[in-house]
């Protein structure tokens, strides 16, 4: 599964996307846990609340289930306006 990163999270992780090896379907909570295993130094940053998740360009909760082909993104709380 390919995951997109934006803003401060992208800079901290040092990449704008990452191809994560995870069985699907999986919920966002499991995706977070798998990402933390890949980026253990940024575990705090990747926790719920510090980083929002979007699936198919819509904000989702950690219970949301990701299926094959979904567009998944993680990013910091937004600061527009």
């Amino acid at each position, binding site marked *: 599964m390919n995951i997109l990163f934006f803003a401060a999270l992208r800079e901290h992780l040092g990449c704008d996307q990452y191809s994560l090896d995870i069985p699907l379907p999986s919920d966002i909570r499991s995706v977070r846990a798998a990402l933390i295993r890949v980026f253990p130094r940024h575990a705090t940053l990747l926790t719920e609340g510090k980083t929002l998740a*979007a699936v198919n360009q819509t904000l989702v909760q950690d219970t949301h289930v990701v299926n094959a082909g979904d567009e998944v993104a993680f990013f910091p709380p937004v600061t527009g306006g």
Partner: protein
Amino acid sequence: MHFISVQEADFDIAHEYAELRKDNRSDGAVVFFTGLVREMSQGDSVSGMSLEHYPGMTEKALQQIVEDACERWPLHRVRLIHRVGTLRVSDQIVFVGVSAAHREAAFAACHFIMDFLKNRAPFWKKEVTPAGERWVDAQEKDLRALEKWQK
């Protein structure tokens, strides 16, 4: 008849106001808000900022916010513009313009759209200060601002 744009270019308030009024015989109220880049942020001087967004999701999120506002109030026209890219102090960042038959709906909807944009639209500000660049942290007060819209 709504207009939503995410763009690098500046916008012209007079043009936006004219578009809200053009051939519009039904509306008695136009309310608009503009957000500008301030020179001070969290006690530090700011010389400018860059605005990043999530292309695709941004437009979708803004569309949803406008639709939600239209379900709640009888709005006839909404114009929503948000800039991205490099901005300097006093530059315009965002425009929300709403027309409706009566002012109560126009005031409320304009406020509602900004409150939700602040929390739901994927934009991120990075400020330039004398100490270097820094990402702006999301603020608790922006999240709390949504509470007043709970039905």
